[in-house]
């Protein structure tokens, strides 16, 4: 019985590691997600290898087809690409906010 439990434990760990690497390494689903005021997303971002949640200029485009707009739409603080959104920079049209940046200068 003890041996069986050990086998199940090892199997579970292997499956977990495979899933972890597949989801958080290969797929990297939280790249560029807004993490500001979203602690769960922030935690999931930081679980991704080579990803950090940090503050910086974020692309703001009011194009419904753009990835950044889709992500911004899910964030409560987004009031459009204008001064109503806190952190909006008029000169380069980007928003200073916290998001999931990956890769760095790798």
């Amino acid at each position, binding site marked *: 019985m003890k041996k069986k439990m050990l086998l*199940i*434990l090892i*199997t*579970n*760990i292997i*499956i*977990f590691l495979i*899933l972890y690497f597949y989801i958080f*390494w*290969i797929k*990297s689903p939280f*790249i*560029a997600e807004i993490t500001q005021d979203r*602690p769960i997303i*922030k*935690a999931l971002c*930081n*679980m991704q*290898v*080579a990803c*950090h*949640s*940090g*503050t*910086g*200029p*974020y*692309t703001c485009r009011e194009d419904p087809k*753009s*990835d*950044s707009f889709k992500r911004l739409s899910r964030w409560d603080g987004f009031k459009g690409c204008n001064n109503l959104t806190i952190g909006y*920079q008029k000169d*380069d*049209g980007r928003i*200073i906010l*916290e*998001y999931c*940046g*990956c*890769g*760095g*200068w*790798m």
Partner: protein
Amino acid sequence: MKIFPLLTILIVVYLPFVYSYEVNPLNNATVHQYITNESILIWKLIPFEIKNHAKNPITNELDSNYDVGNDIVSGSGEEDRQPDTVSAAFTNHFWQPDDPDTLTNGTGDYNDGLAFGDSSFFKAKNIWLMEVIPNYLKGNINESYYHLGRVAHLLEDASQPSHVHLDPHLGHPLGCVGNLDCDDSFLEEFTAQQNYFADTQNRMNVEHYAGETYENKTYKYENLISGFNWSNVDATYPDSYGSIIPLFRLMWYTAQKTQYYASDDNDENSVYYDLDGVQHNFPSSLWQGDGVTIVSDNAAFENEDYYFSANNEGSTCTAQGFDVCPGPTCYLCNNNTGPDIEKETNATIPHSMKSVAGLYRLFWDAVQIDWKFNHHDVRNTGYTLLKGDITANSKNKAWNYSSAPSTDFWDETAIAEIDNDVDDGQEIIVATSNSDYTDGRVYALDGDTNNVLWSNDEPTASEPPSVDDVDGDGTKEVIVGSHDLYLYNINSKNGTKNWRYLINNQTGVIGPYRSTIFDINNDGSKEIVFGEAGQTGAYNGHVVALNSNGNQVWNSSSTEVQGFQNLPAIADLNGDGYPEVVITGNGMVVVYNGTNGVELWRKHMANTYANPVVADLDNDNDYEVIVGNFEVVKNGF
């Protein structure tokens, strides 16, 4: 079903671990794009076409493949997203240039990357060979530039000490498993942080370094180290397209120069090894004259480089919520910021930009493989990186084409890739005329076999052809002036006529002369520029610019007696970002505004005959115009 409770437990255990892993505000997704973008400003003579393919805004909207609209900037950002990069854990972004001989491929392969990964040079070489050059030759220009951005990314990595000291810096707790190095890179973190400099408030620290500050400091692939004997270190790959060895040299020089600086965990290395594995010193420091302070000992960063500690060793350490360190408590010490990191950044970021500017310059020379015009390129330099098979011992004729009518007296050629099969070599496009200019033809030959691919005998008495993808549809066009007064546009794949343009038909007219193809007004589309030529003083010819449909864009504001019996050269002579058209007429050189054809200046020169050449002869980053003339002397010229 038993998996999920365990998974839940593992995630719950892991969450605080990762959640507590927070260093500082980071925006490290866009440093590469910033460097790539600023490098455009360094090479003063950079062609507009390159600038036009580096316009995308710096963005975090990145994926892992080429999409319509992507450019150099996109490619440099997305190299980190490439599946092979991610699955290799970024190990193929590293290179130890002091190891010419790796076990896998033999001497001179320079494929020593991190762990089992290929070197970044090896990867850059492959992208260059498989994507950058072939796509350009096939007319997939946008894709070519996207992949150029990926090579730029790898070159930027070669200017980062960690990447050339094989110092991994995953910066993730997973890397700590088994006491492996889980450190990040202070340089990467610092450049992505904000607010260190007065001018980087709410901006990345890397934005302190503006490309225009380093204007004209481009690394030139043909003159990287004065008097250096490259044959001792050159990679042993075939010099495909004539540009693999120049690419190697640029990247090797960049990496060797970077190695003077310490990384987080490694000290400097200012020597190099030749192909026999013998160590050498450079004749003088590669940083000589750069005005930088070299930080060669990684101990210098002790109080700046962040690290995990079991003890609170000072005021810069902060307690962490989860124990990733040996000992009962974990502290995160230092902040990846400080004067020594600044010194290293002061050197490596400009170094990176100058190197990438050198890559753009190499790219431009490398893709001019087609001998498109009578004098090769739009500046009539006759310069090509491409080398043929001819050696000092070559004496046997490979083939000669003998099927042309014996009346074909004059023949002129262009060489270009027109069947989109890069592997079978280029093709030859020939325009001919009989001796009295009443008959001729245009035909294409396979470069290997001399087989006729197509022939078109509608143009009579043809002038030298030009070959380029004028309308950007992926198929090149052959443009040829004919003495029947028409300029012909011929499909290079099948030889059919697309359109023809009738020039100004006055007394004494000969016809349209040699043409140059270039985007002369920066509208993103190419134009055809040529001179109208006449036999006698009764004929006054213009310079004419046509768009890809054969409609006139402009007629030059001035004419010339007997017209212009030469090939125009095109270059941005005055540095205003817009090209000018340079052409020789009857005893003078004339320069026209490329946007509207208005004459800017002319210089009288007796007996001017040759095509003008535009080049930076004295390396002062300004162009000179070179024109040949002849003087009549006794019994000849």
